[in-house]
């Protein structure tokens, strides 16, 4: 029995090491002066620390702009998806309760490979001057976030009994009022959890960003390859940018972990 528990503990420790070690490396790399980047074997702790990587990576190489661009795009997209997803989910949940096929059709839109959209959108955007624009990427990210939002909202709203809306409507509330004052507050945990998921998917989206932005709008996927020069790669700078980019996200994910898990169980135990 003791051996079993020791085995588990070792396994967990190894796994934790696997997940945490690269993050530790990123942190130390961000503070390492350039001299130590190519040390072989690499030192565990940086012998000296410097903030030059942060300065150069964020301000000179456009890291700050990259992070802000990604943040802006992901947030806008999540909010727009949530808005339309909430409406559509409500419509599906209350007015079309037995529409399995429609729901599945909407969800299946999520499963289309993003690359398939890349070329058409590239050509289209170049003609209508949406190339390399914020609006362009926000719209394109809707292709996979909106279906997910609709589907999740529908499932969450299914959990909320209709009597709640009906009692509000009996009291004379209009549809919009019902939504605003009754439905949304009740479904808020689910909405927040879905929002986090949508944000993460948009934040992670790579191909479409690379295809459709280049200079004006530089989300992280477009920005990071620029740190690779012809003679050297600015490892420290990239790590600094990555570190700064990760902090808000990690804080959000850790703080809202409960909502996230809630969102994935659609409200929890029946």
């Amino acid at each position: 029995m003791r051996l079993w528990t020791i085995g588990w503990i070792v396994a967990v420790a190894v796994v934790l090491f696997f997940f945490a070690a690269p993050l530790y490396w990123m942190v130390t790399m961000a503070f390492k002066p350039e001299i130590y980047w190519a040390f072989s074997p690499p030192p565990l702790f940086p012998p000296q620390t410097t903030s030059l990587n942060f300065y150069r990576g964020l301000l000179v190489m456009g890291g700050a702009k990259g992070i802000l661009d990604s943040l802006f795009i992901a947030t806008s997209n999540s909010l727009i998806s949530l808005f339309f997803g909430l409406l559509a989910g409500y419509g599906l949940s209350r007015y079309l309760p037995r529409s399995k096929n429609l729901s599945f059709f909407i969800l299946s839109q999520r499963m289309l490979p993003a690359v398939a959209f890349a070329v058409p959108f590239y050509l289209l955007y170049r003609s209508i001057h949406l190339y390399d624009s914020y609006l362009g990427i926000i719209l394109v990210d809707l292709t996979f976030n909106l279906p997910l939002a609709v589907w999740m909202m529908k499932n969450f709203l299914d959990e909320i009994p209709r009597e709640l809306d009906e009692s509000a409507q009996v009291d004379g509330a209009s549809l919009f009022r019902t939504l605003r004052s009754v439905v949304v507050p009740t479904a808020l945990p689910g909405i927040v959890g879905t929002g986090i998921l949508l944000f993460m998917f948009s934040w992670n989206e790579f191909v479409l960003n690379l295809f459709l932005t280049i200079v004006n709008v530089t989300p992280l996927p477009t920005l990071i390859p620029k740190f690779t020069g012809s003679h050297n790669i600015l490892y420290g700078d990239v790590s600094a940018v990555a570190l700064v980019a990760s902090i808000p996200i990690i804080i959000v994910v850790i703080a809202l972990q409960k909502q996230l898990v809630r969102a994935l169980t659609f409200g929890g135990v029946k």
Partner: protein
Amino acid sequence: MLVMPAIAILLALNLFPLIYDIFLSLVNWQIRFAGSQPTFAGASNFATVVTDPRFYNDVGVTLALIAVVVPVENFLGLGLAMLLSRKIRGSRVIGSIIIMPLALSSAVAGMIWSILLFCSFGPVDSILELLGIWRTCANPLWNYPIQSIMVADIWQWTPFFFLIFLAGLSSLPREPLEAAQVDGASAYQTFRHVTLPMLAPVMGVGVILRMMDVFQTFGVPYILTGGGPGVTSETIALYIYRAGLGFFNLTYAAALALVLLVVVSVLITLFVRIYPGGLAR
């Protein structure tokens, strides 16, 4: 009604590209030369795809990725979720650490692993050398490109499975588990015959989502190996990108994209059909 705006947006955003893709793949259009006009070319683009050895190479790479990465992430995430579903003291902190790779952008994750795996100053090399596993500077990015991509992907996406299994486990009804224990089932038996079947829908959804994402994985291979030495670790999505924005052969890229779309759709439909127990979610 309320649903209309969302559906209208979806149709406009999703349907239009597919139609345009179909149009592009059926024409011959040298876009890189200004003023050239599209000329109908029938299925010649598709013929090129089917006879393209690089395409088959990429399909092989992508399939190899899926075959390894999805099961590993699935079972690793499941194991971790089971370990942490019991409320041991540090489980919240440990859970937070496990989730972190998922919060990073693919670009960032790829960059981190390219630093780690780089031969001369990556720690992975030094550690493995210390453990005596391999010789100096074995350069995993060059010699084992596909495996490197697998490791980076597993690192980033196991937390996804961990999350959904954690959620799934926490919403399982207690009665079957208690009944099994009353009947004297061992932990392993309870797991295999009670817990696992109840988790099957969740697992199915996770596997499908991940399978589709790995099929069109682009970020990690792009940053980590750029396609590998030559094209040994090039994925289909990478090829589409190269064909489209590299060679500027947009018609070919459209044809490739459509083929990918068909393959993915067929696979999903098949998978949903044969998945034991169906997908409740």
